[in-house]
């Protein structure tokens, strides 16, 4: 056992972090929120160039995957930089198309997904999940209902999320892409991957929130001393770190479980999802409180991160659903 990212995984994360850090992601996020996907798609292309999307696509469709562990590592960095767009959904759609084993449908789209040319939104339509993320910005929108997968005809009107970079739509109409008993199982596997990668985003988001807040309280002074020298501030940040540090191994174990097709993978993903999601929410609350009024303004780039935490916590598995799943008897 060596339950740590290996050198290649670490280097991959570091190079993604460096690449994304050199981009102006806040501007891309703000543009995306305003309906201008240009900068976001440019970022998307760079992420694809780095090989991230290919990790979700099998080799036979010009990909490198599926590699859930490397995807989790990569999506942690995407979360750290709050990259906008249906990245999780595109990776999950790749898993769905792969699992459907409908060669033409997969062959038609997966090479373009791997290359970063196609963004896909995906939505398991139900009362609990009526919206498809960024459907208006996607090149294709897949809708799963029961044993059917549809390719939606249009995105429908967009609803704004509390996270301005999340654009929520109710996809309409379209044609049936696949139907039959295998669809639900394939969709469930895709949803597990989506849940895992959302958890990874939460973890990265939470780490970024913590790091920036630590940096802020070290330099901000009140009452003649750095705010970070107050014990109440220190302890709050310490608790935030504890929450994040114990979410990470759950995430990695869940990724390994998905990679191995372990029977407990569904439970492991649920455990990682709720823990990382709650840890990021805690980090967001900490960031908001310790930045004080400045953290409460949309001008501060960090507010883009703060507002992401809660929607990510609920996307692809609410805390209640995840906790129920952890105790569910089956696999």
């Amino acid at each position, binding site marked *: 056992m060596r339950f740590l990212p290996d050198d290649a995984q670490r280097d991959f994360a570091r190079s993604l972090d460096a690449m994304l850090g050199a981009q102006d992601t806040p501007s891309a996020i703000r543009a995306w929120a305003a309906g201008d996907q240009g900068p976001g798609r440019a970022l998307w292309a760079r992420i694809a160039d780095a090989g991230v999307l290919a990790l979700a696509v099998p080799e036979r469709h010009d990909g490198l995957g599926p590699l859930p562990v490397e995807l989790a590592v990569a999506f942690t960095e995407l979360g750290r930089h709050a990259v906008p767009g249906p990245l999780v959904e595109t990776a999950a759609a790749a898993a769905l198309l792969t699992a459907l084993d409908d060669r033409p449908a997969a062959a038609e789209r997966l090479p373009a997904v791997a290359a970063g040319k196609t963004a896909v939104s995906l939505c398991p339509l139900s*009362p*609990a*999940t*009526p*919206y498809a993320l960024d459907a208006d910005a996607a090149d294709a929108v897949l809708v799963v209902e029961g044993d059917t997968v549809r390719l939606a005809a249009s995105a429908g*009107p967009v*609803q*704004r*999320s*509390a*996270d*301005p970079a*999340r654009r*929520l739509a109710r996809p309409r109409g379209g044609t049936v892409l696949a139907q039959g008993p295998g669809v639900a199982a394939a969709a469930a596997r895709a949803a597990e991957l989506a849940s895992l990668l959302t958890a990874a985003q939460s973890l990265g988001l939470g780490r970024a929130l913590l790091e920036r807040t630590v940096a802020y309280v070290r330099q901000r*002074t*009140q*009452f*003649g*001393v750095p705010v970070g*020298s*107050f*014990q*109440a*501030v220190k302890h709050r940040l310490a608790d935030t770190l504890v929450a994040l540090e114990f979410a990470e191994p759950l995430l990695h174990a869940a990724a390994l479980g998905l990679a191995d097709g372990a029977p407990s993978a569904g439970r492991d993903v649920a455990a990682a999802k709720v823990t990382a999601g709650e840890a990021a929410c805690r980090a967001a609350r900490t960031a*908001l*409180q310790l930045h*004080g*009024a400045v*953290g*409460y*303004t*949309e*001008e501060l780039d960090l*507010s883009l991160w*703060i*507002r992401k935490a*809660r*929607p990510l916590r*609920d996307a692809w598995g*609410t805390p*209640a659903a995840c906790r129920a799943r952890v105790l569910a008897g089956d696999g």
Partner: protein
Amino acid sequence: MDLDFTAAENAFRAEARAWLDAHVPAVPLPSLETAEGFAAHREWERTLSADRWSVVSWAEEYGGRDASLLEWLIFEEEYYAAGAPGRVSQNGISLLAPTLFEHGSREQCSRVLPPMARGEVIWAQAWSEPEAGSDLAALRSTAERTDGGWLLSGQKTWSSRAAFADRAFGLFRSHPEADRPHRGLTYLMFPLDADGVTVRPVGRLDGKPAFAELFLDRVFVPDEDVIGEPGQGWKVAMSTAGNERGLTLRSPGRFLAAAARLTALWRTGADPSDTALRDRVADAVIGARAHQLFTFAGASRIADGGAIGAESSLNKVFWSELDIALHETALDLLGPYGELADEAGEAPAHGSWAEGHTFSLAGPIYAGTNEIQRDIIAERLLGLPKGRR
């Protein structure tokens, strides 16, 4: 010990309720933190004022009804229960007016208060500065003596509602030679459209320009707009911070109404066997009731001639945490619709849960962070050593 209202109080409640029934807009006004909403809320203040409901606790000569603190609480309960609009004059009414009552001249009161009561002049507060948030004694903006008045210079931040307001009030360093940082400050009122004032709106978390930054460059303020003695601004500002204000900054009526809306949401939309959500709804109901009762006890103490000093810190910590928990419960009850921004077409209850949630998140920060409130509780109520923290 009793919780009984007098016949007069009950009549006051009935009158308020009837008026609100007849006047509260059927469709919620647009968000207070937008230009359109600000105008609509200003108009609403005029409507309130026309029937003397805008400042019930003030003297009649200034537009009020001489209502007691308890009557004010009754009015607030009815006001929020009726789903009436937010109060755009809140900063003036709850921060500036009490200061004027205590330290203002009769001339100042007569000049400033009636237009405030009518919503004709909306006031913004100008306390914080970039380097003086929690640490208000670190203020740097200056008031320089000039012929017949003062010249204000410097920068103020987090000035709530200043994006659309008419005038502002705040503290300025007038006597830089003072021996301690919280001395040598002067409390002044100034127009936001004066020469030398630049107002830069700042969006809050949901993007609404709920604040502004103010840049002041030798803005002239006549002596008549100084409140209290020059150089005594800290004392003037603090003297009204601790008493009724600690009880009334956020009225119990607000949380009672929110808890009632939450309960209705739970009853209509939730799985009643989901005890995890049920417990959180119950806690919100209990918390709102506790806050109401705590306030009644505080009002009784004030009626006895007592004071609410550091106890207002208990209140601040309690309601700010209650408000967040209540709104987070609502968002969880709303499932996928809890994520929607308030202006989203499909946002439940016209987006008021989303706006309420955003607003609640600021609670532990403004009016003295909860960290500072806990220091005050520990030091002044429990007698723990001050220490360097």
